[in-house]
């Protein structure tokens, strides 16, 4: 069982890294988003390894299910063209970014040195705290205020998104994204 867990961790973490690299490097936004969905699924697997059942489910349903679908929807709606080869075009920028990233990773990993021997075992409580009951218990008692503020946050996000995304003509009638976009693009191409 233990060995199985280790194998599962290695497999999942390699998958997670691979899919995240896929997300970053893929030329097509659609493919990036699909890689991202895969990535989120592997993360859900990792959560299960950590006995966080509820979060694993939420990760799949909300993140992979809802948020990423929104992303894909927008990508499809806007029908954006593929980026030119990102590696070739920004080679030096890429090297620089990679070096900055490597430094950051180095610093974080260096700071992790203190963790060796710190918390070697999964807590016995882990099983218990990952359940819906445990989370529901505190959600509506100790975390009541954050919950309410989050409600306000989501409301304002939805209202705000409507304010930003809703476009109107000068006369006040709503304007469709698709309505003019392709035509304009044709004009641009013609000119």
């Amino acid at each position, binding site marked *: 069982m233990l060995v199985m867990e280790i194998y599962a961790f290695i497999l999942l973490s390699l998958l997670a890294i691979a899919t995240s690299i896929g997300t970053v490097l893929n030329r097509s936004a659609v493919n990036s988003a699909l890689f991202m969905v895969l990535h989120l699924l592997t993360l859900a697997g990792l959560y299960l390894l950590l006995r966080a059942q509820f979060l694993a489910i939420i990760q799949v349903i909300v993140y992979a299910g809802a948020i990423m679908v929104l992303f894909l929807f927008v990508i499809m709606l806007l029908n954006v063209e593929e980026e030119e080869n990102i590696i070739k075009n*920004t*080679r*030096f*920028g890429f090297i*620089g970014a990679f070096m*900055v990233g490597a*430094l*950051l990773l180095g*610093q974080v990993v260096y*700071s992790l040195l203190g963790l060796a021997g710190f918390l070697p075992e999964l807590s016995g409580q882990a099983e218990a705290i990952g359940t819906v009951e445990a989370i529901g218990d505190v959600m509506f008692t100790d975390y009541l205020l954050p919950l309410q503020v989050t409600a306000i946050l989501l409301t304002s996000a939805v209202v705000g998104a409507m304010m930003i995304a809703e476009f109107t003509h000068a006369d006040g009638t709503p304007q469709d994204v698709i309505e003019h976009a392709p035509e304009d693009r044709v004009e641009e191409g013609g000119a």
Partner: protein
Amino acid sequence: MSYTTLFALVLLGLPAVGALTLGVGGLSNASLRQKRTTFGVLATAAVYIPFLATLYLGWNVFQSGAFTVNFGTFIDAGRWSVDLAYLIDPLSITMALVITGIGTLIHIYSIGYMSHDQGAWRFFAYLNLFIFAMLQLVMADNLLVLFIGWEGVGLASYLLIGFWFKKRTNTNAANKAFIFNRIGDFAFLVAMFLLLQEVGTLQFSGLLENVGMMSQDTLFWVGLLVLIGATGKSAQFPLFVWLPDAMAGPTPVSALIHAATMVTSGLYLITRLSPMFVLSPEVMMIMAVIGALTAFIAATIALTEYDIKKVLAYSTVSQLGFMFLALGSGAFVAAIFHVVTHAFFKALLFLGSGSVIHNMEHAIEKTRGKIKVGENDGATDLDPQDIRLMGGLRHSMPITFRTFWIGTLAIAGIPPLAGFFSKDEILMHTFSMGVGEFAGPLYMVLWAVGMGTAFLTAFYMVRLTATTFHGESRLDAALPGASSAFHESPRTMTFPLWKLAIGSIIIGWIGLPNFVVESLTGQEAHIHLLKEWIYAQAADLKVTLSYATEWALLAGSIVVATMGVFVGWRSYGNGQWEQTDNMLQARFGELYNTFRERYLLDEFYEKVVGEPVQWISKNILEPVDRIGIGGIVAFFGATTRVSGGVLRILQAGLITNYAVFILLGVLFVLAMMILGPVVGGTP
């Protein structure tokens, strides 16, 4: 509230009330602004009543000694606190008398001078603001209140220099004055912090009692910083270049702020702190050198100027140099004495020049109105301040003419006019330092420079006066018939001229040299009234000369001054300025040209300070944000540039760049947190 507190409140508050009333009144209603005379009278009252209050307070001080008026705690910072307190003692009373007395006369003069200016309301509000700030400065009981006044007079000066702001050069002059003053202010501020650190108080009595606590080094640095502060405000070498440009303001402003009062605030500050300065002979020496240098340089420049106000401006700088020389020689009483006398005769000269300019402007404009367009195009750019266009004004402006001559003789140092006594006392002190132990030879050189400058002063002042008033009118050559439009200025303008002229004659008698009587009677004499009055505040160094030497110096001063006037009269008396100046130029060649070009100081600042700063801000600071703040370019480095074509993605405005900077900041903060603090993190 005792009467003294009440009067102090009137003295300190009324000008502010005046400034506010006039300012608000003028702002609120356009038709109200047209009542220029009313504004002028109100403003004058807001200065004249404080003058009376000062007299009352002075009488009180004379009767029962100095006292302070405390209006409560200004700032309480726990370990130290600063009170909103004012010191009423002979020194501050003397300064306040000069400020309000001469201020009143100049306000009266301004009523006439500004009677045709649409912005008169603004002018009087600013003038009252200036008086208010200047009184804060001289009456302050501690350095912080003094600093507030110090900044206030700077602001008022800035506003008044740029008063006619429609003209580009005026606003430039205002900015220049402001910037040069800033340099000094900064040094002064640092000195204040140092004093607070070392002594723990900013109050004068507390400071001066504890000067012994400070080490010699601290004394030197504090002294030097205060000196730099004073150098900026009092227009000393090398920061004096703003003062001549400041003449762009209306003439009463030049007389009040840039000759009689504000520019002496540096001297006042040093005199106030004199017990501290005498402990640091090095600073005294630097001060004396700066003073003598300034006096000489400015005098030589004045020799070659043709603008009547510029000559007076350089002459002011030169006289301020004399005062610094006095301070540097330990002659604090003499410095204040010269402040007082100079206030009278320089205000007189400036107001006289204002009267002349007023007249010239009037004549030029009136005559030009008669000339048909195109008939005489040369007349369009006639400068009413150019003495080359004047001459012969003695007939049409008799009062201005007479009073101007009185001023000239007073500044030249002809006894028994005011300038003679103060200047003689300064040079005597310098000579006394010259035979002293510390840097004797240097002070001897400075004394010689001082004597030379005294000669030059008499010479160029006679040049100015003679060229302006004597000979034949030269305006007619440029603008036919203009001289017939000359007229004397109105009563409001001539009245202050007479008052100041009388002052210029008699004010020197408050400082008759003691040794004259002493050498005759053999007993200690007390005829130097000013010294008796302010000796407690101004820690004068003793003069250690024999009576014979002192008599010789006195005689020397008279001879030099008389020589200067005589030579000047022979060279310029009949309006032959052109021949004489050409002769001088031929004789002195390059030296004369150096004077003429004002030692190229402006160009020096332009090249050494102005252009590099512009270059830095344009070529370094501006691209710092544009090309992606240096570091990133350096980081992505030369490779990026060499390969080319990628540079555009690094341009600012791009979110990517911003993100890179955030990441670099993360690296920095994390490094700091993980690897430990870098020097400077903890005190």
